[in-house]
């Protein structure tokens, strides 16, 4: 994972029927950092994610991975470099953690499994490493139905890690979790970024978690335009929050980072 991929969005626009969601969005995801997309409900964060993960096609503008338009990159080649963790995940309750994490090797495997021994060895070590990193080694044999919500989400995170991506997208990974598991997942993500150098872009619901765990913030207006991008300390102002969320909020400080009491 020494070679980090560059991910750029250029002049991206998207509309559902006559209803524009994103307008002329341009930004570059900083390599090897944790960036978080912030914006009010309905500002197009989810649409943007779907566009960036090839679930939707751009209507105008381009999305570039290492300078190559992602619409021309084959899905499998794309999934070898970019992994995504979604907010809600379903799986058969009798699926074991081990097998779920092995699914993460799918992009590297192809459809037929007559892989040479060294490739299978690589699969095994990637799966094992993903389990170790997410602290799930002891639970590998358990089925998903036996796990707590936090453990389940960790298992899906392990699957994404086993993909050995250069870029990891996280779409509100903590939404359905208790605060304890929210923080657990966010800390895992930070460790993953610091130790493996994986570039991370996420959407978080909680403003303060976003400010605390992110190296950079991308602020999106309710009209689907990029307002600003930069380090939380530098870009977060009461004016920006008002523009993003349509409400006046105060900003204090907590452990050297901006803190927004949202009460």
């Amino acid at each position: 994972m020494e070679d980090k991929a560059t991910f750029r969005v250029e002049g991206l626009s998207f509309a559902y029927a006559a209803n524009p969601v994103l307008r002329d969005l341009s930004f570059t995801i900083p390599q090897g950092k944790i960036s978080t997309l912030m914006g009010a409900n309905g500002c197009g964060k989810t649409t943007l994610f779907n566009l960036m993960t090839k679930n939707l096609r751009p209507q105008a503008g381009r999305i570039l991975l290492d300078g190559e338009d992602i619409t021309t990159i084959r899905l499998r080649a794309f999934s070898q470099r970019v992994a995504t963790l979604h907010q809600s995940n379903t799986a058969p309750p009798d699926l074991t953690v081990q097998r779920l994490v092995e699914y993460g090797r799918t992009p590297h495997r192809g459809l037929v499994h007559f892989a040479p021994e060294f490739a299978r060895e690589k699969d095994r070590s990637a799966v094992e490493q993903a389990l170790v990193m997410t602290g799930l080694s002891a639970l590998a044999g358990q089925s998903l139905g036996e796990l707590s919500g936090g453990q389940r989400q960790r298992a899906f995170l392990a699957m994404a890690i086993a993909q050995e991506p250069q870029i990891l997208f996280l779409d509100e990974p903590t939404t359905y979790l208790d605060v304890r598991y929210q923080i657990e997942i966010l800390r895992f993500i930070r460790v993953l970024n610091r130790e493996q150098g994986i570039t991370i872009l996420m959407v978080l619901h909680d403003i303060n978690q976003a400010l605390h765990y992110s190296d950079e913030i991308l602020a999106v207006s309710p009209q689907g335009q990029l307002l600003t991008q930069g380090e939380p300390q530098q870009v977060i102002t009461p004016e920006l929050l008002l523009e993003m969320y349509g409400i006046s909020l105060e900003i204090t400080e907590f452990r050297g980072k901006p803190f927004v009491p949202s009460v």
Partner: protein
Amino acid sequence: MKAKILLSFVAVGVLLIILFLFAAGTGSLHISLARLMRGLFIEYDEVVAIIYDLRFPRILVALLGGGAMAVSGVLMQAVMKNPLADPTIIGVSGGASFTAVLIAAYFPAAYFLTPICAFFGGVVAFGLVYSLSWQSGLSPLRIILVGVAVSAVFSGLAQGFNAMTGSTYAGAAAIVNANISLKTWNDVHTLFGYVLFGLLAAVFTADQCNLLQLEDKTARSLGLHVNAVRLVVSLIAVLLASISTAVIGVVAFLGLVVPHIARLLVGSNHRVLIPFAILLGAFTLLFADTLGRTIAAPYEVSASILMSVIGGPFFIILLRRSGKVYGR
């Protein structure tokens, strides 16, 4: 779990062999196992020859059709992520039987086209249900409701056209009534090629079926072309259900009950589930057919009637439990 899987395979395999031998030896001509073996492999025996011509095709048709319908059910449940999907409920069997009846009643000379036409009918019915129940996603309930309606229309048409010919065409009537008592080696040959192809294809899609159990977006982020895979797996499921419907008629609940029992026994991994469903489906339909022709001999109760009687209550149990088991 591994031990349970192995035990399930061995148990069903052994039961299947016993049932096969019992079915071959039992009926209006009753012979011992030893005589059957002698007649088949050592020397000519008139009674065994009759059994070979009349009873063996029926047994093989039941085995092939049962395996095909069960796997079709497994695949449809995988594709629709819906535990209640089944080729008869979804209307695929109805569409297939309607076209098969049309051929049998009006174009009997084109009987060799029956499998292809039945497949076409099945695809049309499946396409209708899928497109009519699509509303930014497939709600499990809508699929079942639309499927019931489409199914009712097609089976009504099949019965109607059959009645308009005065029910005089044995071929058409046999499909409507799912009567497999008059099957010949020709039927076995027709069924064998298509079913073998369909079952092999199904086995090879096991990994994709497993990935389809995840959210579509998650499967796509693993590089799976979700829509294309869904289409291919659907076509395999429709092929299996249509071909067996064209030959054995509409057998309700087989594609629903067998996959569920199979899942309870061997789990949801399609690499294991699909092969097991083949065995269990074959066993179940042969069991129903054999029971049907021995229970009130010399009269016969058709396998589809027995499947309805047994499958109906089972379906209700599933409906009542689905909230707990499938978290909906």
